[in-house]
């Protein structure tokens, strides 16, 4: 890692190869310094984040406009046991045999911005296998596909907002953002709240990953405090004797807008 290479560079010195990790790390540092100098403690990722190359032409350039949510935005789609089979929460039993890798449980709660549990709502996950390979046909990483692992799961939260998935710990994988670019191991999560305004798609990471500092997707959340919220905690009480290791990860959605009276009408 070499942010210092850039910081210490004198005018006229060679610009590092834009395709190098050094260049990407320097761009991460520059965007984060820019936020810091403006006093922006970002909770969400910065959409204009040049270190993530694919963002260049896909981030809106105008500020989002203020809208007071109304009508349909104040409620969320309903999902239930018609939509999701409870077996979909176990990603290790979806094919004929046992997938290869480190068996883990990821469990936690989905809460709204006021700390209330989000009950009976859909949670969707997808991930690479233990070797860092997705089933997806466009994943060309030459790591083995596991015939016993699709890496897709769904669950409906309990009355206390709880969810729990049994899966295999995903591997890190290379991607084409720059040369020798590797994504830290992660599980994609898709969440709904009680209002459509709370819709969230994010990624959960594992503690202590040495790739964190190098990853422009994770680092696009420019505040360390906010980034930490995407990292699960190892939880020995969730681990099971001679069976699996446990991780806890609670998810907090944005705050709701409905008044208590409106909420009553929607129940």
């Amino acid at each position: 890692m070499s942010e210092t290479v850039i910081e210490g560079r004198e005018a006229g010195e060679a610009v590092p190869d834009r395709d190098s990790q050094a260049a990407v790390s320097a761009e991460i540092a520059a965007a984060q310094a820019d936020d810091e100098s403006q006093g922006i403690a970002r909770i969400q990722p910065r959409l204009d984040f040049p270190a993530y190359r694919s963002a260049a032409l896909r981030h809106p350039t105008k500020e989002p406009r203020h809208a007071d949510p109304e009508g349909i935005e104040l409620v969320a789609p309903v999902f239930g046991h018609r939509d999701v089979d409870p077996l979909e929460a176990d990603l290790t039993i979806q094919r004929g045999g046992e997938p290869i890798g480190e068996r883990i449980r990821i469990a936690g709660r989905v809460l709204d911005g006021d700390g209330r549990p989000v009950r009976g709502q859909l949670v969707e996950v997808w991930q690479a296998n233990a070797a860092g390979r997705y089933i997806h046909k466009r994943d060309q990483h030459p790591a083995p596909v596991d015939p016993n692992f699709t890496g897709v799961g769904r669950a409906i939260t309990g009355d206390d907002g709880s969810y729990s998935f049994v899966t295999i710990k995903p591997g890190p994988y290379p991607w084409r953002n720059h040369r020798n670019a590797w994504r830290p191991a992660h599980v994609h999560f898709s969440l709904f709240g009680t209002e459509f305004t709370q819709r969230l798609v994010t990624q959960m990471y594992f503690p202590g990953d040495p790739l964190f500092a190098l990853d422009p997707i994770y680092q696009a959340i420019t505040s360390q405090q906010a980034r930490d919220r995407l990292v699960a905690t190892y939880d020995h009480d969730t681990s099971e004797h001679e069976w699996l290791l446990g991780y806890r990860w609670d998810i907090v959605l944005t705050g709701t807008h409905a008044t208590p009276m409106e909420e009553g009408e929607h129940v």
Partner: protein
Amino acid sequence: MSETPANSRYAAAAGLAPTPGQTVGPFYHYALPFADGEHLVPAGTPGSVRLHGTVTDGHGAPVPDALLEIWQPDADGRVVREPGSLRRDPGVFTGFGRTQTWRDGGYSFTTVEPGATSAGSAPFIAMTVFARGLLNRLFTRVYLPEPAAALESDALLSSLDQADRDTLVAVREGDGSLRFDVRLQGERETVFLRYPRHEV
């Protein structure tokens, strides 16, 4: 957990810090799309309408790996509370749809035109946009082009200049379908929304 002050419309600073979003990435296709996700009603249903368009980037190039979701009231403006979007019963309207863009950036939903949720309000479909390269979800609204009076009095549309406003109103095509293009960046960039309690 904080008490909500009775006199505050949205206890803005009072809550837990939300979990940040991250890009949907390139590999969601085998996980998120579901059978008939784009068919809120079966094609050919009397009164159904096709909502379609193209998602483009800052160069006007198609975005072939975007994911769009829509959420809407039924034709009478009722907010439906029905499960079953992921395993559709063709007879049950759930109001929720999800689809991915094709290789040419195009998408198409079959649905009903939403009614107004309150008298005189402008009917719209709520839409979220996800894509590789897009670090967080975007919210927008797809307004029906009619009735003009309702569009005139809409709070959001009234706050926008004509060019921005046009990006949120679907275009009625010759065949009766509704066209709504999503331009992530650049010329005629779609207006995306920030709701109260959504921090930067």
